[in-house]
């Protein structure tokens, strides 16, 4: 009985240890000059002329010589 429970505990511990060693199989292969990170949502916003004019207006309001 004791032998069975020991074997059970050992098996559970072994499975837990092996599970802890798991690594996701996806590998990022780098290519020179190619960005493979997360896409920045700001990139799309900055392409719009509306944001550009907003930033220009901000510049004129805050930073021009007085």
């Amino acid at each position, binding site marked *: 009985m004791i032998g069975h429970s020991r074997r059970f505990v050992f098996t559970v511990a072994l499975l837990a240890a092996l599970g802890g060693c798991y690594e996701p199989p996806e590998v990022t292969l780098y290519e020179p000059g190619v960005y493979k990170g997360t896409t920045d949502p700001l990139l799309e916003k*900055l392409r719009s002329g509306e944001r550009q004019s907003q930033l*220009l207006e901000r*510049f004129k309001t805050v930073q021009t010589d007085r």
Partner: protein
Amino acid sequence: MARMKFLCDAERCIECNGCVVACKNENEVPWGINRRRVITLEDGLPGEKSISVACMHCTDAPCAAVCPVDCFYTTADGIVLHDKDLCIGCGYCFYACPFGAPQYPQREAFGVRGKMDKCTFCAGGPLPDNSDAEYEKYGANRIAQGKLPLCAEMCSTKALLAGDGDVVADIYRQRILKRGGRPKTWGWETAYPEGEA
């Protein structure tokens, strides 16, 4: 399309370090890292000049050219940003950058480098705009809010300008015309005085 640029007018900079403080405060920059610094030339001598330096968001950024994991990307208006999840903290960008812009937190023993940190032109990073995660990792995203970098916006003497390079250049050109010349603190004539070249 605009190209976002910084310009520091050495004739106006009074070395108040307000830009450094504003940057640290706005972006919660950790202790030991300065995204922006004020450099003084000929300190204490007559004619000393100061300039505020951070990432200059180069058009052909050498940091991006040497990055082995290509963690850099450039926005449509020329802001150079990077993904800290890709960065391996190798330090190549620090050696490549002529301005010493890339910084590394040293939280561990034996000089182990953390992920690179640098000026983002207050444009955050590749995470949802103005999210807590973005703020924690990259700092404020003022560009997404329609604002420009705080260091330049709060500069009391308007020495530091940040915005569309064409507009910034126009302002500087008008100042130079009014002054009747450019500063001689650096440049070809200073590096190679007549008769010594």
